[in-house]
């Protein structure tokens, strides 16, 4: 700011409005809920860049960051500033050497908790200790662990553009704890492969371990099946058990599945993702129950509300009842 302040007529730079940039999903306050996201942010905040932090945060909130691509050891991003052409931001994180990784992996595979938590999308609490014992650190700690660049004219590094990208990465850490390892030079699949062999060193070296639990969608092409049934089964099928459906009820907590998965990576929508989901799930569930009970009619999608004050009319006095037969 100071730099431009010299020219009396020049207003403080205001970034161009952007449509469809990546928007921070956190409501006010902090970026990143998890402790590991906070650790990442705290590294940035330790650089003492003053007001740029605040501006970086508001850039991240207003969607100035157009794209973020992460790769092993590096992050590239485009940020819309005040000039027409977006600035290019690069953040490079010091990767660990392969021997360092081997040390870490050996420790991690001693307790199932590390892999289990990572797979479940969480950074294990004690992981920093494991790194520390190996005289390493998970998160970049010092300036030299991190190389940042930006094509903006600001002389300060990190600038607000870098800060904005950094904050958004913090949010992504929330969702994907493997990202930090990726930035440290180890992809998710490589790490899981190494952890899988762990102290059971039976996996041949060099072979790429297959970790995908989920087949790619394109891979699923259902094989055909010839018609084989006998005539009664061809027309009538086979008998089904009486209680096929088990218990069906609308869960007390709505949109539990998307909530369990967490926010969408690098969300750019104007509406917050989970809020949009929470608006859709409950009415859909009510209609699902209607369909299940056979009471669904697409024409009138009105849901009968099952609430009424109980009234015990059986207890009302009535005539009769005393007739001695």
């Amino acid at each position: 700011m100071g730099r431009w302040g010299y020219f009396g007529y020049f207003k403080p730079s205001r970034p161009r409005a952007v449509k469809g940039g990546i928007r921070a999903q956190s409501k006010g306050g902090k970026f990143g809920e998890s402790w590991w996201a906070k650790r990442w942010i705290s590294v940035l905040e330790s650089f003492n860049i003053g007001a740029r932090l605040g501006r970086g945060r508001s850039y991240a909130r207003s969607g100035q960051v157009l794209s973020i691509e992460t790769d092993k050891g590096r992050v590239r991003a485009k940020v819309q500033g005040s000039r027409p052409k977006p600035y290019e931001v690069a953040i490079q994180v010091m990767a660990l050497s392969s021997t360092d990784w081997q040390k870490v992996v050996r420790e991690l595979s001693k307790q199932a908790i590390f892999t289990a938590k990572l797979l479940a999308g969480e950074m294990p609490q004690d992981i920093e200790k494991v790194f520390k014992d190996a005289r390493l650190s998970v998160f970049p700690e010092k300036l030299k662990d991190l190389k940042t660049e930006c094509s903006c004219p600001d002389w300060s590094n990190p600038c607000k553009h870098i800060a904005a990208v950094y904050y958004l990465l913090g949010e992504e850490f929330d969702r994907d704890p493997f990202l930090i390892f990726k930035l440290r030079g180890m992809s998710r699949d490589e790490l899981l492969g190494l952890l899988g062999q762990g102290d059971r060193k039976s996996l041949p070296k060099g072979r790429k371990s297959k970790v995908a639990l989920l087949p790619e969608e394109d891979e699923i092409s259902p094989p055909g099946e010839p018609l084989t049934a006998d005539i009664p089964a061809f027309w009538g099928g086979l008998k089904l058990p009486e209680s096929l459906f088990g218990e069906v009820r609308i869960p007390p907590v709505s949109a539990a599945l998307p909530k369990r998965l967490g926010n969408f990576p690098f969300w750019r929508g104007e509406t917050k993702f989970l809020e949009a989901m929470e608006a859709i799930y409950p009415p859909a569930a009510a209609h699902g129950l209607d369909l299940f009970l056979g009471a669904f009619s697409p024409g009138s999608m009105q849901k009968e509300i099952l609430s009424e004050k109980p009234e015990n009319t059986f207890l009302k006095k009535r005539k009769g009842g005393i007739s001695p037969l």
Partner: protein
Amino acid sequence: MIVFHAGMIEGQMILWGETPVGPHLVPARPPRRKQNKKGKIIPAEVFPYDAGREGLQTALLEAGVGFPFKGKSFAEMIAWLPTTNNTPVPSSPLIADPPQSDGKTTFSPWAITGFPLSSEQALEFLCASMGKQTLAPGIIVGKDLEFWTLAARLAGSLVAKQQFLPGLAKDHETYAACWKPVFSGDDRQRLTELARAMPEVSRALLPLEKNAALPQEGPSFPSSLSAVTLFVEKMADCLIRKSAALFDSKRIYADPASYSSLHDQWIEALRLPHGAMAGDGAELERLASQIRDWQRPIMASAVTPFRLCFRLEEPGDNGKTTETSENGPDSWYVRYLLQDIHDPSLLLPAAEAWQGQESLKAAKKKKTVSPLLRDGFQPQEYLLLSLGQASGICPRIEGSLKTSAPPGYELDAIGAHDFLTEKAQVLEQAGFGVMLPAWWTRKGTKLRLTVRANVKSPKMKGGSGLSLEEIVQVDWDVALGDTKLTLAELRELARLKAPLVKFRGQWVQMNAEEIQEALEFWKKNAQDKAPVRQILQMALGAAHTPGPIAFEGVTATGWIGDFLKELEGKTPFQELPVPAEFQGTLRPYQIRGYSWIGFLRKWGLGACLADDIGLGKTIQTLALIQRDWQKEAKGPVLLLCPMSVVGNWQKEASRFTPDLPVMVHHGLDRAKGDEFQKKAVRQAMVISSYALLHRDFETFQQVSWSGVVLDEAQNIKNPETKQAKAARAISAEYRLALTGTPVENNVGDLWSIMEFLNPGFLGTQTEFKKKFFVPIQTGSDPEAIGRLKRLTQPFLLRRLKTDRAIITDLPEKMEMKVFCTLTKEQASLYEAVVKEALRSLDKSEGIQRKGVILATLSKLKQVCNHPAQFLRDNSPIPDRSGKLARLTEMAEEIIAVGDRALVFSQFAEMGEILKRHLQETFGKEVLFLHGAIPKAKRDRMIEHFQTEGDGPSVFVLSLKAGGTGLNLTRASHVFHFDRWWNPAVENQATDRVFRIGQTKNVQVHKFVCAGTLEEKIDEMIERKKEIAAKVIGTGEGWLTELSTAELKDLFALRKEAIGE
């Protein structure tokens, strides 16, 4: 008639239909041959039973489904169907008999007319078809259509459980936002279960062009699993989209450029009807992979062949696995197991998975193949992922993961209690399997703290009767199981502070709060007052009981105790003597039934007598009315029934209770207003029909009825109908419902009947829906059905013919006459025939006269049977014959309880009408044997009818063809729809079912149109039974010997003959 079928082509539902081809009909289009590019000829002849465009359209309209039709609505397609002798095998004998087999059945292509449905239309149509066998008379729900209604329910259940995620589907190069159901745990089992049971016809359809370009090896059809999966996905997507729809239609066509980001477009497309996404292909692909990454943790666990399962083991429980050394003597244990999705009984300890892929493979070489090595399953990684997810729910799981290969974890009583009460539920909800000890129920340990109400009956006041309105004192007790606890004992328990205590060898949940509540409850409510009516409701578990502790029941002494015990059937109630004036003998079970109604009537409670057809509901009711009338005639009984049985009631009343004044209220000249009131109060019973109940409601209301009896009470099962509302609004001292259909099996129908009997007892309809209907239908409360049974059982008496106690009471053969009425149309035809006959009789003599008499007899019988039989004009069948209406009602009850029946008629034309009508009404095959059927086919029919299981329920026979030489012992009902005025011939026919091998009691129903010659001849035969055999001989010739005056009297139609 049409049988609706539904098939699937690439996730789109295709509706098509089969109709029988009459002998005069030939396939509408000439056979067609299709040629493919290679020149190979694929024969695709027109399916001879194809319903065609018009057939489908008419049937849909008749079924009340208002889909818009356009020329393009229909499409010709190919169905590959089982074919033998170059003829397709139809789905059911309703369509045609299967072709003569040439020994081998192949699948061949047949051209059909399909009606493709949009997902929304499919949902609508499937909902309309749910649980139904016919959509309207003659419009039958095929088994494959029925199958898809179940698949639609599965889709509904997944959406209700919120088991779905937003996604992006790629079809070739286009992308569409979509909702995807998540099949996890049991839902995946349900899906495979469904797929296994799918009728293959559902996936045997091909679009025309695909069939034209068939590969050499023949067509390839989607597997049943993929067809069902795709369908459930489509339905769920449509449903969610529809309920989240954007009503701002302007935006539907919004330009993709108007969205500020692809994410905005996606969120919006998820709520648009089509979901199509526009934009740069590479960018969309990136979004697709982002979505996949995001979904991974949930989708991954949804496709594995195993799931993680937690088993809680009690201290000292040696378990089923070998390594139980972790269990200390006092410690509980939660064991990690992998459970096979498809075979839930296969449980593998976690240790097996911890061995790692390589060790498992190594073991494989030693020929001990682990079931975990399957479909590329990564047991170790899966276990880690699942435990990682579960550790967020349960910190103790996290604790266990501090080692490299935990088999489970140990916990103390407090931990076990926490697991039982909280963690187990959360884990289950998250899709994990949970196995708990058998003594644990959803509500806690089976043994638990309860409160019990003690009621002491006040002394009877001299003379005056007992009443439900009496206010009595209630003392409350706190108990543990059967053991009553004193205040001191309760305080002692409170000091223990352990959540799970072993009490006399059984685990008991001891919640400190609960004990506190019990103590407080005791102080506050120890003494209470309530009317007996409320005590009764509490005893049956219907009333809201005070306090938060489980309510155990009511202990009552004195007359209230006796009353409750009798009501719940714990002690037999007093049998009432049959009034001497009653002209008939009640069988022992009928005395019990009659006394039971009397017992409830005494207390002003409504009763539903639901005995099997033929067990004598009518005479039990008449006995009660007779007794009432003699004791204290407070007013007449209003008996309401379908028009078709009004005559029967009147006849039975005159037979069994001849000294009771009975009035039939029907017809155009029926009394109204004051006139009715004056007449009615002098009667013991007024018989009228449901149709008039609503129309003459105000007239009925003017009378102070002693009772209202509803015969065929299933007529008020729908509480919204006018007749149900009117029935509930008629006031009377007691209410009785009679029905032969098992009403207790249909939860939805029960409320209306109970509301008529005992208003308010089951709560309002809305409360009932919430408390019973939805929990029972959705399976969310397994105890709801038991609670409902307990509540309704005291007011419902249903005896089956097959009950041991009944069988011994019943004769092997019971004959009864069923008196029917004529419709107005029948009556006017009848009178026209009589008029014509009398004119001819005057002019003829000798042989000619005999001819006229025999022809007239035959014509009158035909009119009594059905106008369409008499007129031979192929006119519509329903609602034109009193006999047919009655037969249909009785057949419905018989089919509902799984019995089988023979129906005899002496006319082949009538047999044809009966077969067609019953088939179209029930959507089930009805057999018809007549003289023209060759022996081989006759034998097949008999075999078909005699087989166990899902065979035809009704067998129509012409008296001549079916009268001799057949063995049809599977039937337990015989109907003589019209009469051969010769008992010997009828008995011979009846004996078809009454042969060696018959293990059931047989009921013979002889149909007679009251007030017509049928009844008069019947009376003549009854009068001269002893000489009948001689006089009557073997034919009906004796009737020709009657004088003209006698004939006039014989033919004359009595007024009572006509129904409405």
